[in-house]
């Protein structure tokens, strides 16, 4: 399976480029990071308005949202600014287990996102790079970038068109999607009719809530302020299942060995590094770092090492990073 995945990557990348040109039938195949990708992936219907004309840069759609600028190691004003400061200021999460959280022993931040931020800093500033982590809450991610109080945000941030109007994104470094989390012994098997009659918890205003509004599968929906509150409700017996990003669901599963992810992700949510919209040179630089980091999906690539260290236990059966898609 791993070989298939590795073989698929460049093909998928190529398709991604084609998608940009003509919004083809399987536009986000490049995002598939799972062994049996197309089987679970529900591709959104192609947008008619862009199917015949050349869409490319001018029009952002769900299909081409994950496209970014081609990688380059050249320094520009943003990279120079960081080098001048001698430190990289990164906005991160401190609440999401395995992604960005504080080690109780040391009080230091760690996780998958934190490792990636360190790799970017090392590439720009050298081996002894100084990284300053700023814990930014969800609602402060975009303002922090616009005010330049951080150089970039690495914080399980989904790339989408609405956000791309305000900030710039790197290529996708993780393929996320909504998924169901439930106790191991639960009869719930996936986001399907096994949810009938169950109480399903999701965060208010989240993609999960939107999906449940579209299709409840006969479940009762319970909304809470934050996705992690769902695990509290699950443990207290007030909910039977949780719908949230698979990355966040995995973080929940990591904190409670009696629950697990069920079925497959049923939406398409690529995570990217967000930067100020004007910092195009930094975007290209980060994309270059990401290319190295992915290492073509090789087993000993930094990406796979980080995956094994932080995520595999609760997010198994991922055999490589998502392939990058470019808009130019």
């Amino acid at each position, binding site marked *: 399976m791993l070989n298939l995945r590795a073989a698929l990557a460049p093909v998928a990348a190529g398709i991604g480029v084609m998608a940009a040109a003509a919004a083809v039938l399987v536009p986000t195949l490049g995002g598939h990071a799972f062994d049996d990708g197309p089987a679970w992936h529900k591709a959104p219907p192609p947008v008619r308005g862009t199917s015949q004309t050349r869409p490319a840069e001018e029009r952002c759609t769900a299909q081409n949202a994950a496209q970014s600028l081609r990688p380059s190691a050249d320094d520009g004003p943003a990279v120079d600014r960081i080098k001048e400061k001698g430190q990289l200021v990164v906005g991160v999460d401190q609440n999401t287990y395995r992604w960005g959280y504080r080690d*109780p022993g040391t009080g230091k931040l760690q996780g998958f996102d934190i490792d990636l931020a360190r790799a970017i800093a090392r590439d720009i500033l050298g081996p002894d790079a100084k990284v300053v982590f700023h814990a930014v809450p969800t609602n402060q991610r975009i303002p922090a970038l616009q005010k330049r109080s951080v150089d970039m945000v690495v914080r399980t941030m989904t790339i989408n068109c609405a956000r791309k109007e305000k900030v710039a994104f790197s290529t996708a470094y993780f393929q996320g999607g909504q998924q169901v989390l439930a106790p191991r012994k639960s009869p719930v098997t996936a986001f399907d009719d096994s949810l009938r009659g169950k109480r399903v918890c999701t965060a208010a205003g989240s993609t999960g809530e939107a999906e449940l509004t579209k299709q409840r599968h006969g479940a009762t929906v319970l909304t809470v302020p934050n996705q992690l509150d769902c695990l509290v409700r699950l443990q207290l017996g007030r909910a039977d299942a949780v719908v949230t990003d698979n990355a966040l669901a995995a973080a929940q599963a990591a904190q409670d060995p009696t629950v697990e992810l069920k079925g497959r992700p049923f939406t398409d949510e690529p995570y990217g590094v967000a930067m100020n919209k004007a910092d195009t040179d930094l975007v290209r630089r980060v994309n270059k770092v990401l290319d190295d980091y992915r290492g073509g999906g090789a087993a000993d690539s930094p990406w796979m090492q980080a995956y094994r260290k932080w995520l595999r236990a609760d997010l198994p059966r991922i055999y490589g990073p998502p392939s990058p898609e470019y808009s130019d």
Partner: protein
Amino acid sequence: MSSEASVSPMPSAAPASSLSSAAPPSFASSEQTTRPAPAEPAGGGPAPAPRRRTAWADGLDELRAAATTEPGRLRVIGAVLALLVLVFGAVAAWEVADRAAAADDVVGRSQPLSADAARIYRSLADADTTAAGGFLAGGEESRATRDRYAQDLATAAGLLVKASSGTRGSDRADAQIAALSKALPRYAGLVETARTNNRQGLPLGGAYLRYANDQMRRELLPAARALYDAENDRLAADYAAAKAWPWLALAAGLLAVGALGWAQRRDYRRTNRVFNRGLLAATAACLAALVWLVAGHALARSGLSDSYERGTRSLRVLHEARIDALQARGDENLTLVARGAVLTGDQKDFYEAGFRTGMADLVGAGRKGNAAGGSRLGKALALADDEAGRRPVRDALRHVRQWQARHAEARAADEKGAYEQALAKVIGGDRPTRESFDRVDAELQRALAHEQQEFRSAADGGRAALGGLAAGAAVLAVLGAVGAVLGIGRRLSEYR
């Protein structure tokens, strides 16, 4: 004499026959006019009338027969006077005892219950704030913090038991006590789960703590507040009962004095003797009792009003101010626990918004650092009636302003992403907001102690004014009755 009006029917009959010898016919004629009346309902039937006569009617007849002679009349007058005076004494003693009991209830029962309810309310808010503070410190949570949290829960649980035995079946209070007793152990369980997860470094701990806080906010504190309100309502009811004028006793007293006055006037007219010592003594006893009744009540009312104005109202505002401060502190801690995990509708941090609301309630905007008039501290300052009461409130206000300034620094650090710095500013050692909060709490505690004392001394003064009044009224009434009987007896002896 104003009392003459109240007994006018009798004197009007008496002057009509100013000579004692002329009196019997006039009574006899009136008797004749009333006599046929009971016979009429018999409907002309001759037989049934005698069978219908009751003991009461017989008694009346005897009375009428007795009243045909002056000694007989005097006996009736003496009996009526003694009865009126004794009724006055009894009603006065009963009404005064009632009010004294209500005043005792204010001081000995409802105010302490209200204070206990306030302590329950405060202990719960303090437990929540302390739990969040300890949570922030994580593995370094101090022994003092743990003890304080445990003590808060123990205090709340103990006072709930006490309150449930003291409520005397008030439905409102009982319902809240039941709700609190049910929710408290659940809350404690959530906090322990939060603590355990936190010590393992799981962000889930924070979610549990927020859930515990949510329960506190939505179930426990509202119930504690409702209990406090119920106890305060009862306090107000006891105040009202203690302060009510004893109208019945006053009316009975005036009636007795009036009747005594009339009897003396009648005596004077018939004998030309100015004084009847017995009746005079009876009048003096009744007047003394009446004056004592009015003065004692006026004093008690003013004392109780004082204790309400100076103590109870201030206490209430100060209790609320303390809760506000505690909740604001809890929100400040939770802002750092939640780390932006909960947002308001307009994308603001939920707990920071809560902190601001709490501060607005506590001190408001106010010009030049003063407390806004409608804010709790503004009200407390206006209600404090002496310097000793105002000083701690002003000091509390000063510390609140310092707290706000430090809080702003902490927020600025946190929003910049310098979490550790923000944390140090909130629970650290170098001029943290914790210090400011502790000072605010201590000053408010001082103000509360002062107002409690003010309440107590004013209420005790009021209570003392009623002391001995019930017994005194009873004794005076008995003396008055004896005087009336002796006075009439003296007149009667002249006919032997």
